[in-house]
């Protein structure tokens, strides 16, 4: 593939993601209608100029709710994935670099945690605590640490015996500096790809949990909870399902394309 095409993928990804980030930021200050305002006279209105995506079973404006849902989704999955990326990469690269018994133990625990799907790990944490936004973030953090630890560990192990590491050692660089200044930057493309895959999975996990009623609690909207409400009215108001579903897909496609384009660069 030629270079032009690669940047094209990256560009679409960035544009899509930037678009949703903008919507998320705007939703904090402005939504066309109040996303919580119920009006039983305006139940199940078809999409129109006033209600771009129609109204739901409580007469709330779906477009405004989708805007807030995008914000919730991005904030929750974004913050969770960032924290678990930092913890996972730190643990994975340190243990991978030093090796030995601690590495062996941590990686076995890591394998054990990785052997159940991350959404199940997250569900266990929701079971342990109450159903709230905070729980959701903690659950996602715990669920995604193993994958990041694994990626960074394999990068460090693959690179730690290379010549540039040896020469860094000879010139007296500390182990810490070697790991974070020399090894990790060289594994950057794998880490960034891992980050985008993780972010993507976190968005899906958040949506799935909220869809199951284990994530964001009503009346706060999330793409997942919107879809779960919409599913009940799928026969009478198909547009209620269609718009959140499209938004969900576009949001994830944007993130995936960034990882794609970056990984191939």
């Amino acid at each position: 593939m030629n270079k032009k095409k690669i940047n094209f993928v990256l560009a679409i990804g960035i544009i899509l993601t930037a678009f949703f980030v903008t919507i998320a930021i705007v939703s904090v200050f402005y939504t066309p209608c109040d996303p919580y305002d119920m009006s039983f006279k305006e139940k199940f209105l078809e999409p129109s100029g006033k209600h771009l995506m129609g109204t739901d079973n409580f007469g709330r404006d779906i477009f405004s709710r989708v805007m807030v849902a995008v914000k919730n989704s991005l904030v929750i999955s974004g913050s969770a994935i960032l924290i678990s990326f930092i913890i996972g990469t730190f643990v994975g690269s340190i243990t991978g670099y030093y090796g030995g018994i601690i590495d062996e133990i941590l990686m076995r625990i890591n394998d054990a945690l990785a052997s159940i799907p991350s959404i199940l790990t997250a569900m266990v944490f929701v079971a342990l605590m109450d159903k709230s936004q905070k729980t959701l973030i903690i659950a996602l953090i715990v669920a995604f640490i193993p994958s990041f630890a694994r990626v960074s560990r394999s990068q460090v192990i693959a690179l730690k015996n290379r010549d540039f590491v040896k020469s860094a050692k000879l010139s007296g660089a500390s182990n810490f500096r070697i790991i974070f200044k020399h090894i990790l930057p060289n594994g950057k493309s794998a880490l960034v790809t891992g980050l985008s895959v993780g972010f993507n999975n976190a968005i899906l996990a958040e949506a799935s949990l909220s869809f199951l009623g284990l994530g964001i609690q009503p009346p706060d909207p999330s793409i997942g909870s919107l879809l779960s409400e919409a599913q009940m009215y799928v026969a009478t108001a198909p547009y209620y399902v269609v718009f959140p579903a499209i938004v969900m897909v576009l949001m994830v496609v944007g993130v995936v394309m960034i990882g794609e384009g970056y990984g191939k660069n």
Partner: protein
Amino acid sequence: MNFKFLVKKIITSLVTLFLLATVTFFIFEIIPGNVVLTKLGTEATKESIEAMEKLYGLDKSLADRYIQFILGLFTGDFGISYSTNLPVSSMINNCLPVTINLAIISLVLVVVVSVPLGLFFGLISSKKKNAKKVFAIDVTNQTFMSIPPFVIGIVISLFFGLTLKWFVPGYVADINTDFTGFLWCLVPAAVSVAIPKIAMMIRFIRTSVADEMEKNYVRLARSKGMSEVRVLFLHVLKNVLITNVTALSVVVVEIFAGSVVIEQVFSLNGMGRLLIASISGRDYKVVSAIVMYVGIVVILTNLLVDILYAIVDKRTVSADE
């Protein structure tokens, strides 16, 4: 494939399973709150408390309960459920047929659809002039990979269920009287779980075919005048399948993750729905047992894939020692 490798892999799997069980057990032990008091209220008599503690096995020490839990992995006995007072194992066994069959149908769908399509697309992408088609394939794949199963499920039940009336959403035939009918009822759900994974596997296979087609042995075969299709089936296919065997374990994990959610969409009474009900009802025994069931399946799959991989690619054994 030697004996030492096999033993090593089995021991590693057992250790992983043991660690998972330990983490799972203690994580549910540290939750504050007394199940018995919550259930009986403050006016409970001493006798009724004791009787209930005995029923749930809470009269035993922590160590005893831990050993019991670990043994449960082999006996399948995970005690009595807090919410229904039934044995946890029987509750799970009622749900197993749906989840297992759903997973098997999805897995079959993934393999049957993704291998031929992946090879075909791989063949297309090995030619330079097809760059545009490859791009279109990749974008389509990417999109399908990004759609969560429950969204696909909703669309399928809307379109094929309510509009075309190919199936009745929420209806499942009785497994004992009509097994084929039962399987058919699971197909829409299985398709929803499988679609993103099919896209994922097509992508893996396509890229590895394209990579292999660049290699020297393929160039040699081509220069001898072999047709592209013959090269693909006689030389490339084997290597591509070897590379992608490991991806199967990822697919199995994802299929289980997907079916937890999809059971809710299609109102199937599988482990996913039991799990959600148990989480909401704070029935930790059922939750931890389900975690272990899933963990066992995944760990076993990983073990099988590792062994399979060692059989088809003998280099792994020596590299592992």
